[in-house]
C-alpha cells in the first residue's frame, strides 16, 4: 500500500498577522511557519492505514519554498517514511488550480501509489478544493471529509461527513480522499524525539516544477491583493434604560433610519 499525503506550509497561527506577508515564502523566519493543521489528520490516517495493513509506505509531498522544509521534516517526524518537496521559491505559485495541476503531475511522476490523501482544507485559504481537483486531473475516484477508512482488497469503504450525518461509500483503488478533522483521525499523533532524530538525518529530495511535465498551469483566477477591511465608523447604539415598549420603538425607528429591511415590522 503506497500512500501519498499532500501537506501544505501555512503561516503559524501564533505568528503576527501581516496582510503583506500571507504566504510562507514572504516570511524570513521559519518560526512563523507551521504545517497546515488539517493535513496532520491526513498523515494520521495514512499511518494508521499502513499500520493496520502491516505493510506499505507513506510519502509526504509538499509544494513550497525552503521555508516548507520544516513541514516535510515534521511529516517524517510524525512517522512518514519519506518526503518530497517541490521547489516553489521563485514562482510563488499559490493559485489553487495551478497547485492542483502541479501536485497531480508530481503524483504521476512518483507513479506507484494506491491512495492520495489530503487534509480537508487549508488553515489559511480554506478552499477545500485540492482533493477534488487533483482527482479530476488524475481521473481517479474521490471522497471528501472522510472520517473512517477500511481497506478491502483493491477497494475502499469510507464514511464521509455530510450535513447532519455520515454517508458510506465504496471506492476503487487508486483513489483520492480528503480526511476530516473529526472521527477516527481526530487526534493526530505528535512527533517524538526518536522520529525527530530520524527526520533530521533524512535527506528530503527537492524536485523542480520543470521536471514534472505539468503542461499549462496558468492560474484560472486572478489574485489581486489582500487588505485589512476598513475600520467601522459606526458606533453601537445601546438602549438599556427606560420603558421596554419605548425602547423597542426607539430601536425599530433607529433601524428604519439606517435603511434596514424590517419585514413585518414596517
Amino acid at each position, binding site marked *: 500500500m503506497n500512500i501519498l499525503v499532500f501537506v501544505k506550509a501555512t503561516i503559524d497561527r*501564533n505568528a503576527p498577522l501581516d496582510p503583506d506577508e500571507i504566504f510562507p515564502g514572504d516570511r524570513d*523566519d*521559519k*518560526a512563523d511557519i507551521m504545517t497546515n493543521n488539517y493535513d496532520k489528520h491526513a498523515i494520521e490516517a495514512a499511518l494508521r492505514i499502513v499500520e493496520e495493513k502491516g505493510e506499505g509506505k507513506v510519502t509526504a509531498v509538499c509544494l513550497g519554498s525552503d521555508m516548507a522544509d*520544516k513541514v516535510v*521534516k*515534521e511529516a517524517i*517526524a510524525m512517522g512518514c517514511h519519506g518526503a518530497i518537496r517541490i521547489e516553489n521559491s521563485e514562482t510563488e505559485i499559490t493559485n489553487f488550480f495551478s497547485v492542483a495541476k502541479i501536485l497531480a503531475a508530481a503524483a504521476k511522476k512518483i507513479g506507484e501509489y494506491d491512495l492520495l490523501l489530503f487534509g480537508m482544507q487549508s488553515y489559511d485559504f480554506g478552499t477545500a478544493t485540492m482533493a477534488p481537483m487533483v482527482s479530476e486531473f488524475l481521473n481517479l475516484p474521490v471522497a471528501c471529509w472522510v472520517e473512517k477508512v477500511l481497506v478491502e482488497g483493491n477497494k475502499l469503504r469510507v464514511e464521509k461527513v455530510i450535513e447532519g450525518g455520515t454517508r458510506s461509500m465504496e471506492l476503487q483503488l487508486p483513489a483520492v480522499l480528503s480526511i476530516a478533522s473529526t472521527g477516527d483521525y481526530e487526534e493526530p499523533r*505528535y*512527533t*517524538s*524525539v*526518536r522520529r*525527530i*532524530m530520524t*527526520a*533530521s*538525518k533524512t535527506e528530503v529530495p527537492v524536485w523542480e516544477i520543470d521536471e514534472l511535465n505539468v503542461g499549462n498551469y496558468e492560474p484560472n483566477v486572478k489574485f489581486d491583493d489582500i487588505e485589512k477591511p476598513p475600520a467601522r465608523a459606526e458606533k453601537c447604539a445601546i438602549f438599556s434604560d427606560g420603558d421596554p415598549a419605548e425602547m423597542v420603538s426607539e430601536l425599530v425607528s433607529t433601524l428604519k433610519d439606517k435603511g434596514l429591511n424590517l419585514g413585518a415590522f414596517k
Partner: protein
Amino acid sequence: MKQIMKILNNYSFNKEEQEQNQMILDMVFELAMNEIIEKEQDWDEEGAKFDPETKKVYYPSGMMDLYKKCQQNDLFSIIVPEKYNGFELSYTLWTALIEIMARASLAFSMFFPSQGLNIEIIKNFGTPEAKEKYLPLLGSGDAIGAMAFSEPNAGSDISAVSTKAEKEGNSYYLTGNKIWLSHGGAAGTYITFAVTDKTAGPRGLSAFIIDPKIAGDALEVVRIEEKMGLHGSITSQVALDRAEVPKENLLGAENDGFRLILGSLASSRIGIAAQAVGIMETALQESINYSLQRTQFGKPIGHHQAISFKLADMASLVHQSRLLYLDTAQMKHRGEDTRVESSVAKYATTEAAQSVTYHAVQIHGGYGYSREYRVERLFRDARVLTIYEGTSEMQKTIISRGALSRAEK
C-alpha cells in the same frame, strides 16, 4: 518559543542540532499548550490524593494520561546516554523543555527536574548494574524518579540525616523517615542518603537508590502534604523500616554520599530556574492580555504608565532569567563546573518569579485574587520555588562562599 530559540541558536549547536532543538521544542509546546494547560485548573482544584487504607497515592485525573504522552514522545530520554537507549542531547534543551512545561502547569513540570537528577546521579555514580537497570527505565518514563533527602530534622542541613543503613550480606537495610518527597509512593526509583558510619558525621553518609519493588512494604507512605500551591503534585512523607537496598544500588563509594549528592544538586537547580521562568512567562502573558482587555478611565489599563511600567519590569525580569538559566545549562552541557552559577541562577530567577507573580496579581486587581483567574494559582505555585531544592538562603551561602574563596585564594 521564539525567544528560547533565539538564545539557543546563539550557542554552538550545528545546523542539524538546531533543527532538532526546534522540532523537539515545537512538539513540547504543542503538547503543553494544547493539552496540559487545559487541565491545569482542574488539577489544582482536585489535588493529589492518598488512601490511608491501602497507602496508595494518586495523581489528579488525567495527569497520568498526559504523562503517558510524554513517554510516547520520548521526552524523558533526552539526556539519557545513547548506550542506555537515550538520545544524549543537551542539558540546555532539557531545561528549555522544563520551562515550556512549567508555562502550562508547574505541577506537571515536576516530573522533569527530579527525573533529570535521578538520571544524572545514576549516570555519574551508579554501579554498571544499576546503570543497566535504571537508566532505560527512567529514560522511557516507566520509572518516575524521586528524591528522598529531607528528614524531619535534616532540611537545609543534610548532614543531620539520621536514617541509618545496616549492611548485612549483600544488602543494606535502611530505617528512618523521609519528608517532602515529590512523587513519593508513585516513584520507581528513590535516591536517598543514610548513615553508614555514625562516628564520621557528614563523612559517614552514603547515597543509595531505593527500588520500591525490592523494598516492598518496608517503604511505606505515611501521608501526603496539603500545600499552599502545587496541588496536582504528590508530596509525601515516607517511612523506611529495614528497606532492603542491594549493594549494586549504592551510589559512589560507601561514606562518600554527602559530597556526591551535594555536587549533583547543582544541575537540578538549573531545572528549578527553568520552572521559575515558565511561571513568570505565563504571568507576564496573562498580564499583557488582561491589561489590553481591561479598560479604565477611557483606555486599556496597559496604556496607563502605572501598568505599562510594571509590564516592562516583568518582561525585563523574564528575559534576564531566561538568559541566566539557559546559559548555566549550556555551561553544564559543555562540561564546566556550575556549582556556583547554578545557585546564582536558582536564587535570582526564583526570587524574580515572586516579584513577577506578585505584580501579575496586582495588575489583575480584584480579579487577580479570584480563583477564577490563572494568576492566583501562579502566585501560590511560585512561592515554593525559593524553598525547594535549597532555599534562597542556602543559595546565598553557596554563592558567597564561592565569591569569598576566590578572593581568599
